């Protein structure tokens, strides 16, 4: 079998390696592999990357503290491009091929539902860290025994935001509202949900116009003129990420912010960085803010992140970080990595957290977190960007969430 290696042999060998490699890769024996999947390419890769960055900080911290059950941890990151069928495949691959024993599903909504279905077949624990769609855990038919959510939940934010905005509107006597949200399920569903609660707290509210720009729309002129022509007193918008910063930048040109009060729950550090002149007085929620909760622990976490990555964290960052805190506590409690054992330990678990409204966050029996910090305040053009922050009332949130779940026949 000796002789020169021909181009053909090389090609054949290369092809064979290419085809065989997916089934050959295996982990080193004792390292605990944790699979993480998210959107790491495309227009909102920034959010996926901020999740990964946060997990890498956690990886170092956990390994320095001795790992999980004495084993060092190592993340295996995969890009699902945010596509559901790819997300389902990747989740199975992470467990079946890459040998991951825990999963962090950092997908946005639709892909997280695909991962959720896959979890029914895999006996490993999984924490969804970025999907805010309530039904993922609220609907008992969709809930999965070994899968949990450590993230904001749409209905919590809708109640908190509506309560704040109703108080604000009553104080300022603002009745005429306009809405402007992205034209797809998240935008339409969530706007409807906010309005439903908003009208409950302020029955005399009137929606004078609705604008539904397309996702990623480069030019908002048409939307802005439509809004200005309708002469609302206030505008509620669910635009986010690049769309929100583009909207604010273009709205500034038309002096939109002088003509109406604007309210949005979706302001995050990267959005603030992309806005050239942040108008003062936008009513805004805190998705992640170093100054809310205003505690040394939160500030320290935000600054450690900045020091490591030279950029500020996003809402997705803290959620992923907390997911690892929950894993850490649950594994310690269960003394096992078995999916069912971790699930039992996670259910009802309360941990101390820099991001908790009262310094703690709880994993409720329905596999979703409560007690995380939600606040609303108003913007100022420079750091800390949002001031006069009022924390949400979690008692009220849970009361209305329970009512909502009954309406949906979820409980």
């Amino acid at each position: 079998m000796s002789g020169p290696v021909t181009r053909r042999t090389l090609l054949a060998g290369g092809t064979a390696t290419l085809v065989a490699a997916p089934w050959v890769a295996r982990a080193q024996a004792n390292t605990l592999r944790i699979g993480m999947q998210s959107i790491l390419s495309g227009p909102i890769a920034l959010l996926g990357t901020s999740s990964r960055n946060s997990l890498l900080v956690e990886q170092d911290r956990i390994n320095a503290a001795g790992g999980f059950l004495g084993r060092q941890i190592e993340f295996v990151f995969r890009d699902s491009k945010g596509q559901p069928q790819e997300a389902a495949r990747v989740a199975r691959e992470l467990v079946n091929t890459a040998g991951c024993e825990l999963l962090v599903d950092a997908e946005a909504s639709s892909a997280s539902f695909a991962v959720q279905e896959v979890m029914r077949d895999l006996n490993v624990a999984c924490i969804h860290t970025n999907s805010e769609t309530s039904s993922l855990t609220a609907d008992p038919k969709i809930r999965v025994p070994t899968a949990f959510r450590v993230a904001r939940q749409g209905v919590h934010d809708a109640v908190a935001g509506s309560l704040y905005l109703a108080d604000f509107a009553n104080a300022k006597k603002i009745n005429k509202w306009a809405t402007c949200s992205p034209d797809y399920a998240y935008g339409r569903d969530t706007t409807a949900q906010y309005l439903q609660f908003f009208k409950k707290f302020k029955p005399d509210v009137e929606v004078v116009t609705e604008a539904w720009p397309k996702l990623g729309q480069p030019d908002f002129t048409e939307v802005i003129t439509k809004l200005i022509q309708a002469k609302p007193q206030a505008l509620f918008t669910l635009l986010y990420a690049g769309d929100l910063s583009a909207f604010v930048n273009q709205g500034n040109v038309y002096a939109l912010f002088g003509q109406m009060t604007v309210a949005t729950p979706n302001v995050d550090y990267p959005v603030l960085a992309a806005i050239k002149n942040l108008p003062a007085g936008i009513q805004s929620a805190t998705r992640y803010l170093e100054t809310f909760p205003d505690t040394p622990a939160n500030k320290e976490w935000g600054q450690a992140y900045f020091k490591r990555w030279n950029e500020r964290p996003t809402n997705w960052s803290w959620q992923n970080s907390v997911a690892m805190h929950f894993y850490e506590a649950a594994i310690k409690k269960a003394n096992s990595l078995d999916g069912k054992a971790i699930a039992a330990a996670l259910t009802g678990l309360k941990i101390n957290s820099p991001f908790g409204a009262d310094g703690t966050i709880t994993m409720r029996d329905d596999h979703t977190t409560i007690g995380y910090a939600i606040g609303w305040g108003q913007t100022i053009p420079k750091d800390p960007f949002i001031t006069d922050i009022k924390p949400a009332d979690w008692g009220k949130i849970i009361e209305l969430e329970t009512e909502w779940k009954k309406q949906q026949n979820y409980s």
Partner: protein
Amino acid sequence: MNRNPALRDALFAAIVLILVLAIPMLHRSPAFEDFIIRLSAMALFATSLNLLVGNTGMVSFGHGMFYGFAAYAFGLTMQLTELSLPVAALFAVALTTIAAFVVGAMCVRLSTDYFAFITLAVQMLFFSVIVSWQSLTGGDQGLRGGIPRRHILGFDLGSQLHLYQFCAIVAVLGLLALRHVSMSPFGNTLRMVRDNAERASFVGIVLWRARLLAFTIAGGFAGIGGVLAALFVSGAYPELADWPNSGQAIFAVMLGGINSFLGPVLGAMILLALNDLVQRFTEYHGLVLGVVILAFALGLRRGVLDFIHLVWSKRAR
């Protein structure tokens, strides 16, 4: 040796099926099994497209709509009714075939370029309907809540092994049926239409009727692929019916070879393996895939199997 090609094909299919079914008995590899499940769906999808592209010369850019249509039809039937899985699957495929017939009736009379455009347009229309009709389809979030995977004929499709076996059997039988279509007098008619439509017309072939039949059959088989895809993800998502998915099938056909029956299957295999592999190492998978496909296109100037055929026949001479 070629006295009975149908028997030869059936024998070949049986051997492949036995081999594929035997692998998990020797060694269980969940990743390999997942790969075969996805390949089953993709192979049927791409091969059915090749009935149009390779056999009939009709380049459809909207083939993904039938793949997605069947996934939704199947998922919704399973969620909304108590029908058994095979009945729901057959119903979904039948519905998809009817949809293909209706779409085909609108498209097949158009010449090549306009045919390509209009199939793409109908697909985009269908995609928009899925995204907008939220109360039925779940909009851009997809059909959530899972597909109840009821037992059929002793198969428990909740188990990966059984899903693997089921998909392998369906795919091999589906491909065998497509092979029969392609080798039948009707298949010859399609090739004649492709090579010289005018002459075919002079011989007495009604062109639109032949094309419509091919379009309908292709749609139906893409539908079978769609059902398998829905089973794999246990749901249906708009992406299944979106144009990049049609593009994947065209890639698979071009990569594997349009003149070889198994070309699209090989193309699908290469595409899936590349996708899985490249994603492990880089986020710039689009770039890598593009370069690889470019290398194939410029290096071989035809699909892989077509290239092998060419080299083989040159050697034989």
